[in-house]
């Protein structure tokens, strides 16, 4: 993996900034932007509707993109639904699964608001929402999960947490859930960009991710669902492209994925998303994962021994993927983030990272989160370490 070559693909890095906020939104390589521009410049039409030259070209590109994504996640094209983002995917499942009063949904205590609020909202209709508390070190408590799984209809759980980078043992979780007759929805917003995901092997029932966190454009994401489950799901948004035919009083719906993709789609986004996964695949997910862990080890080795630093999550860097989430004693996380930005042009995220529930339960204001990706370097990490040390001595 040649970082210099990779960095050359990201024109924004020429701005002499250190971008450590890829968990929020990743940077985009020029290949992605160019692929999107190609749509706008060369065939800016609609897919699946018009049969003229441009129309056929877009249709072909969208079909190819779906196939590409299906390959990336080791699944079939008709099991990939394009959404706006992970949040929309979760909401689609929440609203289409046909959950009934008394059905139980399990989540962890580290869910992003996007995988918390849809379930909280359903409690108004009698759905039971339960939270599985993590271990002291923020790792998943399988024993607790096993205790709570009985009678569960759906386990909707984060794969890699955006809070601390900890990945849950989803293989085991899925097995236990299935053994108990529960379906599993994986929130892979933070894992899909950083590790290989094989839906066949994992046997997850649903999975969501966002293009913008994995080198793709914003406004595009994907929902994976097992074909037989998608067939049973009711469409959530209705409209153009979801039906084969309609009268004034009835409609004949398409099968999946079309019945879930209402209205004109974000074609440029889909094409860009596909280009992004091609880019990731070409580099290799294993190499990316390894690179991030090496960098995280550097951060951990240098910063964890500082008395003023408190880490969120387990001490071992290999357990926290590319995320280093921390606080400096007596310093507000936003204050630290601003000082990093001003002193060394380092961009990190600060606050509750949309996991307010976790921070509120601990009476914490938030944390500073440095999140790494394939384009980050050892030198950048050294600069970050020095800057954090300087702030810690203030």
């Amino acid at each position: 993996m040649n970082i210099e070559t990779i960095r050359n693909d990201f024109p924004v890095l020429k701005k002499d900034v250190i971008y450590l906020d890829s968990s929020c939104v990743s940077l985009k390589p020029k290949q992605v932007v160019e692929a999107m521009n190609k749509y706008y410049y060369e065939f800016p039409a609609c897919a699946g509707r018009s049969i003229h030259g441009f129309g056929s070209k877009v249709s072909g590109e969208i079909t190819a993109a779906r196939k590409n994504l299906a390959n990336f996640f080791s699944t079939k094209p008709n099991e990939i639904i394009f959404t706006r983002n992970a949040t929309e995917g979760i909401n689609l499942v929440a609203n289409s699964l046909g959950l009934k009063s008394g059905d139980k949904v399990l989540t962890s205590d580290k869910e992003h608001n996007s995988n918390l609020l849809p379930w909280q909202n359903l409690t108004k209709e009698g759905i039971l929402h339960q939270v599985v508390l993590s271990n002291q070190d923020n790792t998943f408590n399988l024993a607790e999960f096993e205790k709570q799984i009985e009678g569960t209809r759906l386990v909707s759980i984060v794969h890699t947490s955006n809070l601390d980078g900890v990945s849950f043992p989803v293989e085991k979780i899925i097995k236990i859930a299935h053994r108990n007759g529960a379906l599993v929805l994986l929130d892979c917003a933070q894992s899909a960009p950083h590790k290989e995901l094989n839906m066949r092997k994992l046997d997850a029932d649903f999975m969501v991710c966002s293009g913008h966190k994995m080198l793709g454009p914003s406004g595009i994401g994907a929902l994976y669902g097992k074909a037989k489950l998608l067939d049973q799901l009711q469409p959530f948004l209705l409209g153009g492209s979801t039906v084969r035919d309609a009268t004034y009083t009835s409609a004949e719906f398409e099968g999946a994925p079309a019945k879930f993709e209402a209205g004109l789609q974000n074609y440029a986004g889909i094409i860009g998303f596909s280009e992004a996964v091609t880019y990731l695949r070409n580099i290799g997910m294993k190499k990316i994962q390894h690179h991030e862990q090496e960098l995280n080890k550097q951060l951990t080795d240098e910063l964890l021994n500082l008395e003023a630093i408190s880490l969120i999550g387990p001490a071992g860097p290999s357990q926290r993927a590319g995320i280093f989430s921390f606080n400096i004693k007596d310093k507000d996380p936003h204050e630290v983030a601003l000082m990093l930005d001003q002193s060394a042009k380092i961009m990190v995220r600060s606050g509750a990272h949309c996991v307010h529930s976790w921070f509120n339960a601990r009476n914490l204001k938030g944390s500073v989160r440095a999140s790494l990706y394939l384009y980050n370097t050892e030198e950048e990490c050294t600069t970050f370490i020095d800057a954090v040390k300087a702030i810690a001595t203030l």
Partner: protein
Amino acid sequence: MICILALVVFGTLSIFSARHRPLAKEAFDCVFRKLTLRKCESGLDLRLKSQLTGKLLRRHPRFAKIIYKNFELLSLAFTLLFLISFVYMGIGGYNYYLYGDCNGPNESGFCIFDPLGSNEKTSSLETGEACPSNSPSPKYLTLANVNLDIFPTYDRGAENDVIFIGCYACPYTREAYPQIQKLLLRDDVNFVFAHFPIKGKNDHLSDILNAIYLIDKQKFITLNDALFELDPLLLKDEDVIMQLVEEIGMDSELVQASIITNNVSAITAAQAIELQKTGLYGTPTVFVNGNAVVGPKPYRVYTRLLK
């Protein structure tokens, strides 16, 4: 504290640029919350503190530490300084409006609204050049014991008296003259003009003025208008002056004859002695109802002294 400072700074900036308006609004919100003993929600104070220390951290880590540790205290000090200077600025603005000088009536010193001090400038009696800034103060000027009867006077029997002491060739007198002309258009002002020829020593113009006044009590104002209009370099040219006297409808020969027959130079000399009694140190000096105003001032400064 920093929010108050931010409010004033951004508030002022936002008058001129839309970019600062959201910041000013934030600062206002922050100050309002703090005044009602609540926490500043926008985190503006935190942002300003972190941005400042962050910037310093790169080059001067020690200094950054001092700022970080004493930020509240420093911002309190700055805010107080700022508020004090703001009050002074207000007073300055008020003085400028009333007296044409931020420092108040009859004071000298730097004025932000008149940075070049053009409202203060006078021509020095000794050198004819602009007076040095350490000139004596107008507060020592007086009309007590000064015989004004021997000067060209336009007495309307009005309730206000304006005595204008200036010299035809002096740049600041010339600058002030349009305001004097405006005053003369009012019908509530009596007017006395005293020519004090400093620059270029145009004594002969005093004689002509006095001679014309002896012949026609009204004409000296017309003469003034013409002489202040004339290129100052031509004031010494007798032919030009005589031509100008003709142009204002006077017989130049009669005027010249009158200078001799009426011994006008004695009047001129007597006037000079009277003017010394005023304590005069530069032109223009204007007395409005006995209050001395030195230097070319905005019109409002003179009218404010009228009854």
